[in-house]
């Protein structure tokens, strides 16, 4: 059970990276609109079609379900909503993605799976978005930014903890900026071309409108599918929120005091981690990874008999990696059980990812720091 949490984390990360890879391909294809509509269409075979095979679709669907499901599960397993700002952004962007994306997926991918003669090529899609249903276009534009921001933040917070990050950063960060900007520009450029062609090429226009008619025929069924997806997703989110609310209501009176070095004290509830208590009470506490047991910067020194739950596999691995002493715990993984605890923070609140990448470079300073603490 304990070990599986580590695996779950890897699966969530892996599924996210897989989805990000797909989105990158999709957006790169869109960016080719800067060259021409034909180039876009030509490269679709290489960039998009592999994902649209049955196998590709199954993989994507599985990845999406796993990523969303694990995300909601991890939200449900929280004990408080005391999160870093980045985590809040991640959570809200992630929650907003499925409802905004449903009509794009259902209207194009599900539609072309159901009706063989329906052709979801770029010409049709762009014509619909630019001329026939511009409100959908606005929605999809928004979702591009939302999904990309969610993916980029996730990728960054994973990679920034790696030792190779200083070398990777000059390559990855420009890509993180270039892909969405170029794809939006490509979308705009191709859209102009499509609008011009719609105005001049009547035959082509008739073709598009015929395709639209096929879509109209299926409208009811697609609507049903969409509603079902919304219902399932809504139910899942509602269940998650319900679990969260129930947990916090049940435990709202089970208050636990945490005392820190420097004479600070704070109150939390049973089940909250020490880091969450710090966050909820605005006590300066270093935490580079945001409470995922990855960086080791939130670690605290606790007395041997402290009333905290036992460390799990992920925590032990991180503690070992950063060469922490035996009485150290990760504040983000040490959950309160009921009695008051007294902890001492090891890192100053302002450490950055450097401390997680090179724990040894901080060791000397920490030693002197520990000695200077009264």
């Amino acid at each position: 059970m304990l070990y599986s949490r580590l695996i779950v984390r890897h699966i969530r990360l892996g599924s996210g990276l897989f989805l990000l890879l797909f989105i990158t391909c999709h957006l790169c294809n869109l960016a080719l609109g800067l060259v021409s509509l034909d180039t876009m269409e030509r490269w679709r075979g290489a960039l998009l079609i592999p994902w649209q095979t049955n196998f590709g679709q199954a993989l994507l669907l599985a990845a999406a379900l796993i990523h969303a499901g694990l995300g909601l599960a991890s939200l449900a397993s929280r004990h408080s909503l005391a999160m870093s700002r980045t985590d809040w952004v991640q959570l809200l962007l992630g929650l907003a993605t499925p409802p905004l994306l449903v009509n794009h997926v259902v209207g194009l991918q599900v539609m072309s799976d159901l009706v063989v003669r329906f052709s979801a090529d770029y010409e049709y899609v762009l014509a619909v978005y630019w001329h026939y249903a511009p409100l959908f276009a606005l929605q999809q534009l928004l979702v591009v930014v939302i999904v990309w921001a969610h993916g980029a933040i996730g990728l960054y917070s994973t990679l920034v903890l790696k030792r190779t990050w200083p070398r990777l950063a000059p390559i990855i960060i420009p890509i993180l900026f270039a892909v969405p900007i170029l794809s939006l520009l490509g979308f705009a450029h191709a859209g102009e071309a499509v609008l011009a062609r719609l105005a001049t090429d009547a035959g082509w226009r008739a073709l598009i409108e015929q395709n639209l008619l096929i879509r109209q025929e299926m409208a009811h069924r697609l609507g049903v599918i969409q509603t079902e997806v919304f219902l399932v997703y809504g139910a899942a989110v509602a269940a998650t929120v319900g679990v969260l609310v129930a947990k916090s209501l049940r435990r709202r009176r089970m208050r636990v005091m945490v005392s820190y070095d420097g004479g600070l004290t704070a109150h939390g509830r049973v089940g909250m981690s020490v880091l969450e208590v710090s966050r909820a009470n605005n006590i300066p506490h270093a935490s580079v990874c945001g409470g995922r047991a990855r960086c080791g910067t939130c670690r605290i020194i606790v007395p041997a008999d402290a009333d905290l739950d036992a460390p799990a596999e992920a925590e032990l691995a991180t503690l070992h990696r950063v060469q922490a002493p035996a009485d150290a715990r990760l504040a983000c993984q040490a959950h309160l059980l009921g009695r008051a605890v007294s902890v001492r923070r090891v890192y100053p609140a302002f450490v950055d990812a450097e401390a997680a990448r090179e724990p040894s470079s901080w060791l000397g300073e920490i030693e002197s720091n520990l000695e200077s603490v009264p």
Partner: protein
Amino acid sequence: MRPWLISLTGAVAGMAPSAAKADESAFQRFVGLASADVSANLQALRDDFALAPSEAEHFGAAIAATLRDGTAVRAVTFALILVIVGTGLEWLYWTFAAAPLRAVVSTTATSPRQAMGLALRRLAYLGVGVVLFTASTVGAVLILPWPPNVDTIVIAATALVVAVRSAWTIADVVVSPHHPSLRLAAIQRYQSRFLVGGVAWLTMLAAAAMLLPQLLTALGSAPHLAEAIRVGMGVLITVSLLTAVLIASRREDRSDKERRKRPRFPKAVIACFVIAATAFLALVGGGRTAALLIDIAIVAALLGASKRIVFFFWRDATGKDEEPAAEAPPDMLPLIVLAVVRFATLLIGIAALILIMRVPIAELTTGSNPLAQFALRGADTVALAFIVYLGWIAIRFAIDHRLRQLVLLDPHSPPTENTRLLTLLPLLRTTLAIVFVTLFTLSALWTLGIQIAPLLAGAGIFGLAIGFGAQTLVRDVISGVFFLIEDVFRIGEYIESGTSTKGTVEHISFRTVALRHHNGPLTFVPYGLLGTVRNDSRDWVIDKFNIPLPLSVDSEKIRKMIKGIGEDLALDPELGPLIREPLKGKLYRVDPGVKIFRCKFMTAPGCQFDVRTAALKKIEAALVEASISFAGADPQTILVRRAPDP
């Protein structure tokens, strides 16, 4: 008087000053104009609301058209690129700046002044973020090929975001909801959160009220809709402000501390009245009058709160949270800062007033309008008063500070090297006050255009007359000045003057010196009568006394004995430090039947009596021990009994 009043009303009404020259009363004109303005404004308001819906419809139709022809999609695409560029670059900045900012935030400030420094650093970090966001967004706006008119909208939206973020940042830095030690104002935690949210909300409303109507007028040529929106926003702002005032006042009432104080007129009522009046004026009387009222209200509020605001930063130095008591004057710095803050507030307020009233400054300064000239001179005088006040505070506090550093003055304690300062500084303070007041009065009169030369000449003649009548007075004052300059005596010194007056100097004034005789009476001697002064309290004194001993004593032995006693005394913990040269004695004279030893020692002034007493006591004890008695003054009769005859 009448033209002056008329021109005043003319100026207040914002009309040209030349209106005063007109035949009819300017006041009547002003009233007529104002009422005409009000009814015209109300009519315009009715028109705005009547025509706004149809204009909104047109505007909606125009937007729908842009959706169909791809303009809207294109605009949104580019706008999203802006979002990516702006937010992305700022995010990149924060990946570097977040750690230093956290370092600032996690510091616990020990004094409000340190908190001020930390707040400035925080403001710098946050401000650079906002500036970066603004610059990158605006840069991207300039680069991208926008559809017509869209860039105006985007710039307006960016301006809105930047305004709200700036206000939020500043409010957050000032009241610092999460870190009480970094707070720059004396407010509670719940108030601080409420305040940050309120400031952001009001800024958003104000920016929207300014930007939206302009945008509508520029793009859709919908002036009535724009005006209606402006009025609506104004109502919303008024309601928000009133709500904020009410919430704040209710919270305040609940705290026990307020309840125990004496009842005062609730500030909330005044604030509500001002807000409501401003809103009403803005609605019916045009913006200028309302802006005038806002300006005056803000300046008044700031002036009222300035003492609390400034002293907050010296909370640790002046006491916990209350303003310092009158008998223990605070440091010089807060008072100077307070004066500067008040003056600056007033100045900015007046500048804003001038801007609002659109007073033609250049015309006024060169023109010949007497009121304007008078006002300018008044401003000069105020500035002069401010500078004089600052200088006076600085000097007064420098003197007081120095005086407090010196020992507290006790006229009968032994004088130290600081007594001269203690004597002179209070005199200097009084003199400077008189000089400052005189100089300021003369300069102010001169600035106001009143000729001071005749005044000075008149004063000179008058002074001459008085001078003849008060020769002794002048003599006293001038000789006093020289006594002090030559450092003849200081407070606490024992002096004897030529007229056999003697005593300890207790008080020095311009004309007299008060001497306390050692028997108690206090003699006030005018300086002019002091004459020769013998100062008994300078540097050292030598004391001598005689010891008569019988002829039979060994002089050398006595000399050594007295020397030994002198050395003993020099080692005494109390008397030793006072002794400059130890006690010595030697045979001075041999008289019939008596040897007189003269003893001599040197001490600090005024200590000779104690030392002499101690020395005599010890000598007597030593003589008793050596079985030597003092030589009696009476002739000794020695009876020699012959042996009886055998």
